[in-house]
C-alpha cells in the first residue's frame, strides 16, 4: 500500500512554486500540504505538493480522480470511491482528516469556479 503511495508521491505533478504559499496550505495535516486549483477550458486543474512523500502520494490519488473534470462533476463526485480503494481504512484518523480536508478544499475550489 505504502509502496504505491511513495511511487505516486515521487511522480506527482508539482505545484508552481509561486502557489506554494501559506494561504494554499491544507489544515489538518502533520506535514505541509499545498493545494492549488485553476479552471482551464472549463475543466478543473489541481496541483499539489507536500513535504512528506506519502502525503504527496495520497494527494496524487486525489488529483488523478478529480483533476480534468468540470466543476460540477467535482462537486457531485461520489466519495465512496475512497473507501472502495481502501484509502480511508489504511489511513489513521489523523491522516484521514487531512484527506477529508483536502477533498473539501477541492470542492470549495470547484464551487468557486462553477460560477464562472
Amino acid at each position, binding site marked *: 500500500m*505504502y*509502496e504505491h503511495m*511513495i511511487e505516486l508521491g515521487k511522480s506527482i505533478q508539482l505545484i508552481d512554486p509561486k502557489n506554494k504559499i501559506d494561504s494554499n496550505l491544507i489544515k489538518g495535516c*502533520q506535514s505541509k500540504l499545498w493545494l492549488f486549483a485553476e479552471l482551464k477550458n472549463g475543466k478543473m486543474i489541481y496541483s499539489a505538493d507536500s513535504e*512528506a*512523500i*506519502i502525503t504527496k502520494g495520497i494527494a496524487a490519488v486525489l488529483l488523478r480522480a478529480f483533476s480534468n473534470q468540470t466543476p460540477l462533476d467535482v462537486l457531485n463526485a461520489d466519495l465512496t470511491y475512497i473507501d472502495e480503494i481502501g484509502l480511508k481504512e489504511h489511513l489513521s484518523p489523523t491522516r484521514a482528516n487531512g484527506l477529508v480536508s483536502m477533498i473539501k478544499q477541492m470542492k470549495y475550489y470547484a464551487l468557486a469556479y462553477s460560477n464562472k
Partner: protein
Amino acid sequence: MVFDINKIREDFPILKRKVNGNNFIYFDNAATSQKPNLVIDSIVDYYRNYNSNIHRGVHTVSQEATDAYEGARIKIQNHFNVKNSYEIILTSGTTHSINLVANGFLDILNEKDEIIISGLEHHSNIVPWQMMAKKNGAKIKVIPINENGELDMKVFNSILNKNTKLVFVNHVSNALGTVNPIKKIIQKAHKVNAAVLIDGAQASAHFKTDLQELDVDFYTTSAHKLCGPTGIGMLFGKEKWLKKMPPYQGGGEMISDVTFEKTTYAELPHKFEAGTPNVSGAIAFGFALDYLNKLGFDNIEEYESSLLKYATNKLKNISGLKIYGEAKQKTSVISFNVNGIHAYDIGTLLDKFGIAVRTGQHCAQPIMDHFGISGTVRVSLTFYNTKEEIDKLYNSLKQAISMLR
C-alpha cells in the same frame, strides 16, 4: 537485584501484541508509558471491591476508599521526600498542575514583575504563563538553548534580576531528553527571592528526585508517564506558596463553610482539590510508584543509560541521520531527522514494521524553531525496551529510507 528484562516484560501484557503482523515495539514512552499488571489490577480491584466516594462518607466502604486515596498521597510524599503530605496536591496531571499555579499567581504578580521561561519547555509550561501575563502584565523572558539542546546558563544569569519572581524549567526536555541543571537554577533564583517551578513530567519515570534536598518551590508530574494511568498527577508546592495562592476550582470538598453571603475554604491540600477526585487513578499512581521502586531506580537508570548508548551508536551509523540535542546529560530519548526525508514519512513506515515512534513538534515549537526544522522523529526508550528492539528499529529504518529516497 538482578535486572531480568524478560521477567519485567512479562509484567506488561500489551508488549505481547502484534501490530501490522509484526511484534509491537513501543518506542513512544515519552508520550505515555505502558502499564504493568499491578497497576491495571489495582484499578479493577478498586471498582470491583471498594469503590465509594471519599472523605465525607460515614460508611465502611467509603472509609476504605478514603484510606486508599490518602494512602496514595502518602506514597507520593515519601517517594519525593516531601516534608508534609498536605504539600502534595493531587491533580489531573502536569498541565492541570501548572494552570493551577498560574491561576494562583494571577493576582500576586503585576507589570513590575518578570518571569523566566526556558526555551526547552513543553507548551504546557509556556501557554498558561502567557495567559497569566496577558492579564497581569508580568514580563516574560526566555532562556535560550545552544546547539547541543542545553540551556544557555550565561544568558540565564544575565536575565535573572531582583524583579524576577518566577522561573520555569523542565527537569527533562520531552523533545530532546536534555536533563537540566535545576539545582543550580533553583539556588540562583532563590538568591533574588524568585520561586521556581520545575516540570518533572519526563523526569519521574527515569529517576527519583528528593524535593526537600532540591529546595524547589513547585514540582509537577503526571502518573501516566511513569506506568500509572492517565488523568492523575501531582503538584508539590511549598506550604508558604500554597497558602498564598487562591483556589483554582470552586466546588465541593474544597470548602469549609458555605452560605450565600460568604464561603470559607478548606485547609491544604483539599483547598485545591475540588469535586470528586480520580480515586482509582490516585490509588494506581501509588502502585506505579511501588512497582518502580521495587525494580529500583538505580537499576532503571543504569539499564536505560546502556540502551541509550547502544541506540545512539547504531543510529549514528545511518548516513544522513542527524540527532538533535546531544546534551552531556540526557535521558533515553533520541530525536532525529534523516536528510531529505520528512519525519512523517519515516514514522508512517516504521509503524508498518510495528514500531511506534512519535513524529512532529512534540508540543515544543520553540525548540523546533530554534533548530529551523518542522519536526523530528522521536524514539523514547524505557526499562522494558530491549537491544533486540533497537536492532529491529535500525533495520526497519534503513529499509524505510531506501524506499523513500
